[in-house]
């Protein structure tokens, strides 16, 4: 097995034993069913002022899309932060760089393995949240047709497929935020900065996107592609904003990951 894959395997083992990651897994798994239960028991009314909030009791996939819209605001940046923001900085905090760097794996192996572990974990958490919310929605409202964003009716089977594709479309910005978390974790050597940084950045960009007159700047914000899935649910499918977002996220990955890698390769491991 190549060096980076060995590191990937053990980083996933380490992530799996950490309490905060287990809490996030449980939240992704149980959060949507808890929301569905609350709505089913009429503990609170549907959030009618949010995208698909008014349809959650009418069609199964609506709950999943409601969760997706909400997650794009700060949950997904938080997922990226919790998983990737601590991967490098925790080695500084525990003083374990000197332990792993005195073995045969190179710094490059460690960097690539850790980044792969971060990507694997955020993709798995995204999939878990998508499947959990879709299953909860289907249990809550069944498989009735979904109302599209242009007012058109979408057949149940197609609605499920489009819902899963919608979750897939937020993968690029999620990977972009993962790159932000990795870079913060390596450059600041602080778990707090690595975990909280992506969340704060996400919130800041959300606020910026609400400022009027920004025009083109809005397309350059890493949070904008989180709503690219809207284009799937209109009567004429529009993937332009998704493609723009994919390019933007690729740029983030292309700049931030080499920057973090270079910092890790060149740094002195001099602290205890």
């Amino acid at each position, binding site marked *: 097995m190549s060096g980076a894959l*060995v*590191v990937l*395997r*053990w980083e996933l*083992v*380490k992530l799996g*034993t*950490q309490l905060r990651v287990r809490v996030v897994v449980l939240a992704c798994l149980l959060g949507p069913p808890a929301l569905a239960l609350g709505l089913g028991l009429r503990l609170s009314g549907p959030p009618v002022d949010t995208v698909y909030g008014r349809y959650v009791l009418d069609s199964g996939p609506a709950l999943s899309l409601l969760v997706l819209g909400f997650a794009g605001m700060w949950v997904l940046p938080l997922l990226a932060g919790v998983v990737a923001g601590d991967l490098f900085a925790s080695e500084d905090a*525990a*003083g*374990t*760089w*000197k*332990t*792993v*760097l*005195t*073995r*045969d*794996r*190179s710094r490059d192996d460690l960097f690539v393995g850790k980044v792969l572990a971060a990507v694997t974990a955020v993709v798995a958490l995204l999939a878990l949240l998508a499947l959990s919310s879709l299953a909860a929605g289907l249990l809550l409202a069944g498989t009735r047709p979904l109302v599209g964003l242009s007012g058109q009716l979408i057949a149940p089977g197609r609605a499920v497929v489009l819902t899963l594709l919608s979750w897939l479309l937020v993968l690029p910005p999620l990977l972009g935020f993962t790159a932000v978390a990795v870079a913060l974790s390596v450059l600041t050597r602080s778990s707090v900065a690595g975990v909280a940084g992506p969340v704060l950045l996400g919130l800041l960009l959300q606020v910026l996107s609400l400022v009027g007159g920004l025009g083109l700047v809005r397309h350059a914000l890493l949070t904008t592609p989180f709503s690219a899935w809207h284009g799937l649910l209109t009567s004429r499918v529009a993937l332009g904003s998704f493609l723009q977002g994919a390019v933007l996220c690729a740029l983030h990955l292309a700049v931030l990951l080499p920057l973090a890698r270079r910092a890790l390769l*060149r740094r*002195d*491991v*001099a602290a*205890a």
Partner: protein
Amino acid sequence: MTATYALEARGLRKAYGDRPALRDVDLQVREGSVHALLGPNGAGKTTLLRALFGLVHLDAGELRLFGRGLDDGDRLAGVSGFVETPAFYPYLTGRSNLRLLSAYDDVPGAPGIEQVLREVGLVTRADERVGGYSLGMRQRLGLAAALLRRPRLLVLDEPDNGLDPAGSRELRALVRGAADRGLTVLLCSHDMAEVDGLCDEVTVLSRGAVAWTGSMSGMRAQAPDPTSRLVTSDDRAALGLATPRVRVQVHPAGGLCVEATTADLDRYVLALAAAGIAVRSLALEVAPLEQAYFALTGSAR
């Protein structure tokens, strides 16, 4: 450079900002020897070990391990050990930490995890999380992690830090046994007494530079006479019996300070008795090697 040295360093230089940590350090560690790297805190020992493992980047100099240069991909093959207190993942058990480190190695025929745990006496605590380990247990786990690599050169940074006297004795036996099997050991310490009797060679670092290097026997030969503290029934009269070979002065804490070889000290004590001066106490104050070490490093006792 020849390959008869496990470690050979030439002209190593490293500075952290404006503060030099290593200043043209040369070091040669013969294969099969137990070599002490001595120096007070801040002398550059740990920086040298970090450079050896590639943890810090040198500003200048050449460092070779078993003839391999710093840039060789497998330069750490046959080398293991730890720098400062060994650190592990606190949320994993001792055994899981060793499994992880073993997976990060490419060592054919490496000893099993059970075997190294047995060697360091950690078998019964191996399934506990490292977060609950004492400092001494982490030292033992560090040693186990080092032995996993089946090293030819074992680098230990103050390994008996945190060990109780029994643990310290076991560690010395383990190091001596490893050396007897042909392993080269580089033992880093700030305490001469810790390495005396264990090491064949010694390099003393002071303020980032080599102050002395050679065999332990060579250092012993160059060491000054031992200093003893003597309390007599009449210190003033005893002071008057001093000779050029027995240097006597008043001890600041009371009694006399006597610097002489053992034979000259015997003669001096007999002369005191002959003069009717009773010896109430005579105790070794500074061992010769320690005295040499203090003189080389300029450090106070």
